[in-house]
């Protein structure tokens, strides 16, 4: 790995984004709009938004980043630029980490805006410190980026990449504890949910909004980080210099 090449790649990805203001607007505004819609939906039922609002905060950055990353990297694979990069001194890790850095930075901006909106505009009640909520949102967005990078290796077209959403993302949302507390699920589904990273993301959010401290917050968060790192490592292994 080489710091200069990693940073050059991250800067290049951000520069590409800067030529696409509509995508930036969607990335930054869409999660807030959805959180707002959710808050409005439950505006007459006190306590419901406080119960689910946090988990929603974990979901949207994850989904948005998954989609954006898988399609952007797929475009790079298909346009021939990846093939050209593979003949230059750039290491596979430079490429993957460069992407993760660029989208991680976008995730931070997105998290700050979404958390601010959820708390100040929608009145989300959070017992724990706000920065922790922001941190979880960033880590979730990074997880989305990491899984998106991995998914793009298995998609040949943009159409396939989008189809990975229902396969990789929806089961995690259904089993993650948003619709039903995980410990009330059938045993088999509970066991499966133990292996899904989003379950831990939602656990972390719930711990922060409930005002838990210490290990209750950090243990699930570290598990999410571990999943994200694992997905990034797998993604860089699926990058091939030689292709058929």
């Amino acid at each position, binding site marked *: 790995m080489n710091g*200069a*090449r990693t940073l*050059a*790649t991250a*800067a*290049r990805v951000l*520069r*590409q984004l800067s*030529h*696409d203001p509509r995508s930036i607007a969607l990335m930054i505004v869409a999660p807030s709009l959805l959180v707002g819609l959710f808050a409005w939906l439950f505006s007459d039922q006190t306590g419901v938004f406080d119960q689910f609002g946090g988990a929603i905060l974990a979901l949207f950055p994850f989904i948005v980043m998954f989609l954006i990353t898988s399609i952007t990297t797929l475009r790079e694979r298909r*346009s*021939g*630029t990846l*093939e*050209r*990069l*593979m*003949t*230059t*001194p*750039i290491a596979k890790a430079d490429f993957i980490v460069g992407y993760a850095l660029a989208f991680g930075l976008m995730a931070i901006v997105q998290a700050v805006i979404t958390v601010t909106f959820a708390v100040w505009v929608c009145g989300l009640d959070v017992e724990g410190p706000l920065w922790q909520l922001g941190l979880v949102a960033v880590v979730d967005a990074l997880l989305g980026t990491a899984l998106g990078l991995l998914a793009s290796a298995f998609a040949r077209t943009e159409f396939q990449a989008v189809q990975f959403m229902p396969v990789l993302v929806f089961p995690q949302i259904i089993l993650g504890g948003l619709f039903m507390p995980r410990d009330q699920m059938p045993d088999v589904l509970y066991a499966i949910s133990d292996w899904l990273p989003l379950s831990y993301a939602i656990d972390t959010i719930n711990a922060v909004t409930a005002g838990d401290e210490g290990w209750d917050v950090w243990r699930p968060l570290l598990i999410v980080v571990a999943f994200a790192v694992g997905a990034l490592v797998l993604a860089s292994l699926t990058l091939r*210099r*030689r*292709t*058929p």
Partner: protein
Amino acid sequence: MNKSSDAAVEVRGLRVRRGSTEVFAGLDLDIPRGQVTGLLGPSGCGKTTLIRSIVGVQKVAGGSVTVLGAPAGSRELRDRVAYDTQSASVYSDLTILQNLRYFARLIGAPRSDIDRVIEQVGLGAQKNQTVDSLSGGQESRVSLAVAMLGAPELIVLDEPTVGLDPVLRAELWEMFRALADAGATLLVSSHVMDEALRCDRLVLLRAGRIIADTSPERLLSETGTTDPDAAFLALIERDVASADPPPRSRREAREEDGS
């Protein structure tokens, strides 16, 4: 630089399969240093596959490709070999300058190179335009400019002059000549036969085999023709006549066996 061998590229017994078709079944080729070698042949003959094998992005089934004394695609070659893919491989949503800056940083080329290559491909006036606002010919010149960054010892260009007007093609070939005169080795594929006369050496590929490895003068004299188009047609006809008859298609087989 490895002085033990005169050839910039040595291909020995190269076998490549793509899908269910065998593109090369044992190909041998030497490409000399410091010259412009033209790789010519009808489309689908294996030009791009050979080029991809030389720059080390093609999965090969057997044989060896040695480039500048090292196995193709090995780490030490990555800033010594430059490659331009057939379709422009640059970022269409970045400006010309931003594209070149990124690739220059990757290969560690000095910043002064960026202005030089922009001038070489004649895009100085457009350097702050995004690539997707350019014409197809301009886009492929941006892609070519990337391959000129740094001081590559081997420059591999896959159909760099496709879709360009004759004036620009002539300018680019003068630039290729200048690069070779400065010591670089160039491998340039093309299916425009009149470009063949600008090469030092010609390799004609047909159906995954080399049917001629010659110089422009010898090509014309051996085929008794005056223009390269006619020369290549003569060579291909000669090759078709000497090769085994092509395998019957299923339909032909059915019709013949049934009658």
